[in-house]
């Protein structure tokens, strides 16, 4: 690629304290993300996807990181904590694996969405305005009033939009979405991915989408990195990975995808989906 990467990860190794020393769980991962690019990080459970994502923002104080992580040319591993805090939520937004648990139960939705702006010195009035606009853009109806509600008054799908709003309100250059849709039913999943896609396109924002489901990658990402046991085993465009997987493990992952070809972002008919309320009627 000719453009300078937004994010450049080289030989990233992550170890955690374990009985009798440090246990390495990520063993040298390389990853590049161009500005505006959408890349999927795919792999089975425990392959080190979340650990890699958290390492980018240096979120675990007891994790030992080595290798290189550069964001917009700045070496993040050498950055003092204060600068790191500006990057978190400012240049890089993160949506958690379980977004439904990542809202403060006793703070109004509005205050939580405004917070990344408020802590960066934006006035409350302006921040509130922007929070409402963004929530509306993300399909939260009547956002003007709903910002004064608390998380438990929101449905899963709506809380997911709130979490995304929090992650992107400060207009980060990169959004890391760690399985943002696994807690949602299939219809809502597809809609949320669509919204992320639109948002990224509108803002020229890059997305690193973490998932174990190759099925949702095709309609979403341009490139994919396949991880297994803490290593990146295959990197390529989504086309390459779908049509000419080089690694056995990738082939196995593909075999687990229920339908190849066709519109992979279209919702599946889910067995036993009776409990899944139609998404647009939720509150």
């Amino acid at each position: 690629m000719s453009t300078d990467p937004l994010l450049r990860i080289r030989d990233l190794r992550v170890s955690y304290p374990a009985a009798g020393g440090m246990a390495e769980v990520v063993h040298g991962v390389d990853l590049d993300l161009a500005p505006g690019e959408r890349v999927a990080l795919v792999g089975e459970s425990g392959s080190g996807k979340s650990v890699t994502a958290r390492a980018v923002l240096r979120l675990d104080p007891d994790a030992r990181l080595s290798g290189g992580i550069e964001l917009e040319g700045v070496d993040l591993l050498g950055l003092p904590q204060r600068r790191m805090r500006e990057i978190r939520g400012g240049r890089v937004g993160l949506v958690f694996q379980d977004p439904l648990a990542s809202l403060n139960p006793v703070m109004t939705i509005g205050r939580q969405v405004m917070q990344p702006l408020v802590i960066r010195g934006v006035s409350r009035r302006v921040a509130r305005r922007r929070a409402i606009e963004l929530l509306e853009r993300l399909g939260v109806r009547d956002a003007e009033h709903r910002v004064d509600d608390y998380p438990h008054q929101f449905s899963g799908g709506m809380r997911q939009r709130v979490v995304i709003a929090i992650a992107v309100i400060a207009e980060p250059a990169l959004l890391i979405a760690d399985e943002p849709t696994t807690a949602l039913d299939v219809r809502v999943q597809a809609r949320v991915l669509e919204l992320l896609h639109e948002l990224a396109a509108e803002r020229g924002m890059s997305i690193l989408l973490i998932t174990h489901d190759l099925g949702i990658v095709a309609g979403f990402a341009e490139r994919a990195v396949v991880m297994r046991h803490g290593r990146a085993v295959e990197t390529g465009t989504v086309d390459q990975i779908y049509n000419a997987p080089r690694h056995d493990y990738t082939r196995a992952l593909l075999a687990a995808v229920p339908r190849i070809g066709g519109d992979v972002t279209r919702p599946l008919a889910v067995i036993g989906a009776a409990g899944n309320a139609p998404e647009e009627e939720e509150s």
Partner: protein
Amino acid sequence: MSAHAAAKPRTRRRVPVVEGIALAVAALVVLMAVAGPLLAPYDPYAVDLSRSLLPPSAEHWLGTDSNGRDVLSRVLYGARVTLPATLVVIAASTLIGLLIGTLAALGGKVVDEVLMRITDIGLSLPAIILALGLAAALGPGLSSAVIALSLTWWPGYARLVRTLVREVKDAEYVDAARVMGVPQGRLIFRHILPNALNTLYVQTTVDVGAVMLVISGLSFIGVGAQVPSSEWGAMIAGEANNLTNAWWAVAFPGLALLLTALAFNLVGDWLRVRNDPTIRQEAR
């Protein structure tokens, strides 16, 4: 109103009957404490021995005591003594408990260790012995009782706050806020403490009844509020030997004490249930 208003009543369940009554009683006691002097038909301290130990009548709804003082007026004034004393104990204990508990939970191993040892010492002090000691040192009186009780009551809150803060600080939403670059101070005051306090204030409401009983108990055994005072425990102590021939002089302050303690207890329990996030989720 807008469409979402329709969903609201489901999240705020109605107040059940018993708790509704408890809430009303608690509110009544607060009203008594605030407006007692306006409501009381007589001067609660006016001695008139010619009218001593009159049974309840139209003139004296709750009768008179051995000094001819109107029991109703004294019970009403009593709320002004017992309730504020209770609230001072609760407030002082909450403040100390919050400070010590938060520091212990967030201050690292050594701080935690030291503060928890101090808390253990506080926990091992029996309120009554300390009150007796303070009464001997400072002279008996309501303030001795309040100080003694505060000194023995905060360690429970320090423990509770420590547990709550440790729990909340690892909650995913706190991590999520940190991920968004929220600085440490804001993290503590906007995210950790408000969530911990949610449970703490339920506990303090439940404790109002207990603290009230101890204060009245201390007054009853003579180390709290002193004799002419209309503090409920002191009233009971003053008339205890008339129990057989003038039950009203003892029963009504006792009843006031019992109902108030019970009311705050029930209200606290109700708040506990209402605050329980798992129950709240179901209500959605």
